[in-house]
């Protein structure tokens, strides 16, 4: 395996990671700064935080802080998981023994397993964070519907990020193992 090929195949995934990473870090930074008003707070108040806080007499501003923290941590954790699994696959794809025409397809099972494990971890992670009120203070204030929305939203976002990384970063000679990667131009 030539290191220069691996470095070459890290360029596009690097761009994807930078874009998604920037969005993630910016958003999580915003969340960790405990905003008291603005679009994020409105969104959390309208869709994520349970209506029960009003009956408990807890002001939205008090509940929003812990929810922002939980949300921010889940973003950072999801980002790290995505980077590990995405770039992990990119590196592994260069080491898989594609020793002839047609061999790459055999490794699609590896990719499917990698992707399934990644998605499962992502969902389990979000579920654990958002649905487990005992472990995280902020999750006590998140409604069932809100937890579901965050889990799906984060999963879609990071699965998309993961897919773009593996799509553009898988070793060229191993592209047949990744769903639709064969559609890419030969020299990309």
């Amino acid at each position, binding site marked *: 395996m*030539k290191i220069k090929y691996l470095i070459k195949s890290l360029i596009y995934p690097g761009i994807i990671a930078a874009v998604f990473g920037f969005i993630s870090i910016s958003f999580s930074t915003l969340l960790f700064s405990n905003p008291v008003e603005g679009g994020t707070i409105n969104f959390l108040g309208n869709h994520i935080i349970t209506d029960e806080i009003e009956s408990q007499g807890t002001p939205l501003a008090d509940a929003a802080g812990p929810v922002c923290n939980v949300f921010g941590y889940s973003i950072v954790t999801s980002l790290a998981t995505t980077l590990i699994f995405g770039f992990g696959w990119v590196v592994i794809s260069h080491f898989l023994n594609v*020793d*002839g025409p047609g*061999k790459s397809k055999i490794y699609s099972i590896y990719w499917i397993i990698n992707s399934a494990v990644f998605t499962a971890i992502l969902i389990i992670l979000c579920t654990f964070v958002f649905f487990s009120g005992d472990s995280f203070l902020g999750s006590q204030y998140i409604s069932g519907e809100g937890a579901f929305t965050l889990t799906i939203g984060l999963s879609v976002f990071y699965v998309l990020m993961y897919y773009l990384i593996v799509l553009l970063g898988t070793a*060229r000679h191993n592209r*047949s193992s990744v769903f639709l990667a064969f559609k890419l131009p*030969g020299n990309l």
Partner: protein
Amino acid sequence: MKNFLISIGGTGAKCLEGILHSCIAGLGPEHLWVGMVDQDQANGNVSKSKILLNKYIDLRERLRTTGKDDVSIESDIFKTQITVNKNDALWLPLKDADPKLSEVINYALLKPELKGLVDCLYDTQEREQNLSEGFRARPNIGAAAMLASVNEQDESFWQNIYSALEKARGGEEVRIFLISSIFGGTGASGFPNIARKIKNIQNDMNVTGNVHIGGALLLPYFNYKVPDDFNEIHASPDEFLDQTRGALEYYSKLFQHQKIFDQVYVVGWEPLMKLDNFKIGGNLQNNPPLIPELYGALGALRFFDEENKMLGNQQILHIGKSEDNEFRWSDLPNISSKIDAKEKIVQLFKFAYSYHWLFAPSLTKRNWKKFTNENWFKRHLNRSDVNLGTEEKQALLSDLKELSIDVIKWLSDLNLSSERGSGQKFNLTDARSIVNYDPKQFSDRIKLSENLTNEQKKQFTDLFYDSYNSSLRDVMANLSYLKKVKEQSGLGSFVDTLFRSCI
């Protein structure tokens, strides 16, 4: 620079086989004219090299056609443009069917005193021997036949030499290299006579500079057992050493009195390699390729290399291998400081291996569509000027497969037969892991399996001793990542990149 190679006799033809394989690998000069000299045109060694020569010329032309299938001028594969005599690459000193020495010298018409002289030099059996299967290791017969025929200047074979010397007169450098054994019939008689004939033509044409003549002489390097009850005139290995001593004394005197050669490469081998196959000539004489022939071939290519400067004196060059009982890649001489012979030969073998076992089965008319989504296919074959469904492209792919088989068999046979014959350890390639070798099957010693097992594919990494070995995964990766050459067209992109991928 114009380069001319004349292979003389069976050993010359075997060396030519090595030269042609080396030229496929990119070790040859830009241009090379090749002529073969042998009286035994049906000889298995000669016909094998002649077939390979024709294959080379044909495939090179088809892989270097601008706008069609072109590997581009930058590519090393089939780099050398080889041309041959327009009628036939092979020159037969005696043209008639079943020629005899008595007919060549018009024995019946000679005066009695001349007949007496001829009787002193040749016995009746030698005079009446049918020479259609060569000179049977009798240089005295060959010399007479050669001298009687090299004066036929109208022959197109010699016309090529004349036109070369004309070019030298015009200022272009011309290098002519002769290659043969010192101990046979055709080679031993042809080598000095043809060289002297060329020198004479040069003198007659008053071409004083720009012409350099080189040669490779192979001392005895093999022997074989002749059946006790065999009575016909034949090449007897017991006489090789005596013949060689006589020939060396002759050359010693020749070199003292006349400067014919600029460089002479003398190749020998100790101990002599034992061959299983004894045949007096004809198509059944199909000797295995042996390592001294590759030395001769590399000597020829070194002579043609531009880095090789002619010093004006007569150079006798020799090279030795390490003294232990083992032969390694490092024992193989290089052609120049820029060209690593070992690297290129290994590259050619890997190319042949990859093409024969991996890509040829995937690119058949029935299978190629299954691979159109793979990156190597998209990069190199998914082009407007490539349609693998056409007979033309399939024919080219099929001929490439045939060439790959030739290459695999040649290098495997070279290693295994040299090892078997010499009793020395030949550590070039672990050929036994991919081919079946049966030295008793003279016409087909090496058999290739249809498919490779996964275990065999894994052994690709260890196929070459004493060498950096890439894996098949590296070949696939290179094919997907190596930079393409803009000027390439048709199948040229795939063929050249696969060759470059096999480093």
